[in-house]
């Protein structure tokens, strides 16, 4: 109640506002028949308790998925878990709240004074990352509704050529960097806007969104989990965290016998083969490459920062205030009156043009501050990716790649070693 007080005062102030500007052109009637004013029924929003129940469901689902993937080793169980998450977080909660979008709430809260983040959004951001740090990407395996819908529709997995796979895997990094830049400058929530499956969850969306989602699902029948692999910005974070996971799903329940039966089964190219046959690049060559790329990382970072810094003015077009200022400037230059609703509303609002231009300048400044960091992040990620291509580790077993593995459990049934649990 105490917290609500300023808002109530604010509303009361607004009411005074009405009294001052007295929109009452016509006097309020004095009824003689004893007529009473009807009251408006204003439906209350979803109770706060339910938001916390969502968090509990998230934790429960993560624990269950972890158990199914790491201990029970049941692909069947993971599929049922996906069905549950798709039903609950997808169709019942309609894709909101989701961990993927929460990245933006966190960046908006970190870099803006006016925005306070709901505790549930913060928890949805952190809990899956904690699980990734402990057990790998169990969130992707059976909790994320976006992952679940793709997992369930990925029926005929086709392997992509390694070069295509590696190149496309760069896209999520760019998406994440741009999305954080847009969110932290309070411009827009890119990830939510282009969420491909939320329209399907709601069964109601602009048709372009439905078509985009349907096309992704169609492609996903063959190229499994296209959103997760080549777009998902939260996946980038999970990928990084999962690489350092304390425990992770294993292909074999006991010691690997190098039978090579699992070699080709992973649709995500996430199985690192054993290299007992030593077919990798000669160590001398890869060591040189390692050193070269290591030295090049600062250069990549600087290039990225330089590129994005110069792109800042274009990127700032994502902000509606900047767009409005540009429209007004064009209007001034050409003398043709703009019919854009934003321009009309701006003229009605009584704000001066210099105020608008100042605001525009400030926002572009924020883009200039943020974009080099986004660029440096991209450069460093690219550099580390190049380095990781040169690293040659001796392996005598088949292991999942901890960054890429979604813990989907497809490989379980191909391992001939059976251990009684």
């Amino acid at each position: 109640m105490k917290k609500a007080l300023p808002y109530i005062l604010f509303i009361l102030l607004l009411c005074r506002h009405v009294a001052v500007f007295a929109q009452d052109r016509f006097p309020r009637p004095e009824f003689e028949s004893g007529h009473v004013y009807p009251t408006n029924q204003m439906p209350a929003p979803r109770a706060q308790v339910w938001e916390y129940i969502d968090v509990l469901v998230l934790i429960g689902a993560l624990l269950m998925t972890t158990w199914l993937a790491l201990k029970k080793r049941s692909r069947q169980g993971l599929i049922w878990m996906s069905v549950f998450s798709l039903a609950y977080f997808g169709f019942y909660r309609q894709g909101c709240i989701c961990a993927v979008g929460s990245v933006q709430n966190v960046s908006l809260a970190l870099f803006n004074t006016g925005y306070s983040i709901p505790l549930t959004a913060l928890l949805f951001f952190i809990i899956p990352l904690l699980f990734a740090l402990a057990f790998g990407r169990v969130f992707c395996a059976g909790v994320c509704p976006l992952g679940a819908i793709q997992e369930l529709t990925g029926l005929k997995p086709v392997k992509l050529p390694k070069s295509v796979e590696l190149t496309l895997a760069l896209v999520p990094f760019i998406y994440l960097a741009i999305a954080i830049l847009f969110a932290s400058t309070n411009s827009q929530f890119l990830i939510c806007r282009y969420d491909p499956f939320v329209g399907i969850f709601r069964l109601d969306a602009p048709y372009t969104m439905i078509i985009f989602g349907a096309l992704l699902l169609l492609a996903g029948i063959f190229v499994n989990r296209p959103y997760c692999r080549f777009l998902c910005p939260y996946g980038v974070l999970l990928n990084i965290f999962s690489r350092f996971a304390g425990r992770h799903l294993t292909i074999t329940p006991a010691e690997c016998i190098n039978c090579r039966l699992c070699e080709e089964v992973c649709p995500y190219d996430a199985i690192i083969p054993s290299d007992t046959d030593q077919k990798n690049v000669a160590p001398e060559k890869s060591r040189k490459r390692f050193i070269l790329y290591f030295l090049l990382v600062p250069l990549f970072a600087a290039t990225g920062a330089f590129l994005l810094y110069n792109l800042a003015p274009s990127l700032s077009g994502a902000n509606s205030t900047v767009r409005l200022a540009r429209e007004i400037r064009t209007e001034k230059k050409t003398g043709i009156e703009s019919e854009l609703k934003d321009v009309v509303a701006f003229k009605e609002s009584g704000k001066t043009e210099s105020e608008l231009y100042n605001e525009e300048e400030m926002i572009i400044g924020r883009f200039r501050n943020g974009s080099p960091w986004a660029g440096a992040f991209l450069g460093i990620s690219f550099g580390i990716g190049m380095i990781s291509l040169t690293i040659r580790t001796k392996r005598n077993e088949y292991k999942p790649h901890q960054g890429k593995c979604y813990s989907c459990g497809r490989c379980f049934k191909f391992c001939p070693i059976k251990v009684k649990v």
Partner: protein
Amino acid sequence: MKENRNKYQSRRDFVKTAGKLLVAAPLVIIPVFLAEKTKATGYVWQIDPFKCTQCGQCKTNCVMTPSASKCVHAFRMCGYCDLCGGYLRQGVKTISTGAENQLCPTGAITRKFVEEPYFEYTINEELCDGCAKCVKGCGDFGNGSLYMQIRHDRCTNCNECSIARTCPSNAISRIPANIAYLPKDAGKK
């Protein structure tokens, strides 16, 4: 040979532990940093009726069809006029409930005789599609007692409201969920 393996093993372990600490650090720092800014209550999206310019984009830009934003009538501000700018089309020949006279494209406003010379106008929420034509009419010629609000039984509370993103007058903002509405006639008896 054995010694060599141990050396590699410990180096790998070191890299892994260092990496783990490095990525775990933000997970601790971010909540600590945001502790002050974190609110236990969520937020909902709402239209500030005093900023709204009745552009009509609420109807088309909401992810829901029909839109979650609908017209609300502040009865305590209404003049109960016979010639109502929110109910009747501009320049009508006769003041009646004929469909050709009504401004509302979905016929969502009911006109009811109260007593001479007053008429009461009620919004049928089921029919209202949030086009804001009546709101504009009422604001232009009347007391401005009709106004737009986002109805929380329809609103899915998107992370970023797609009407808010395109609202030309920035009238839509996040407000605490325990307030939920910004009634125009708050405090009027």
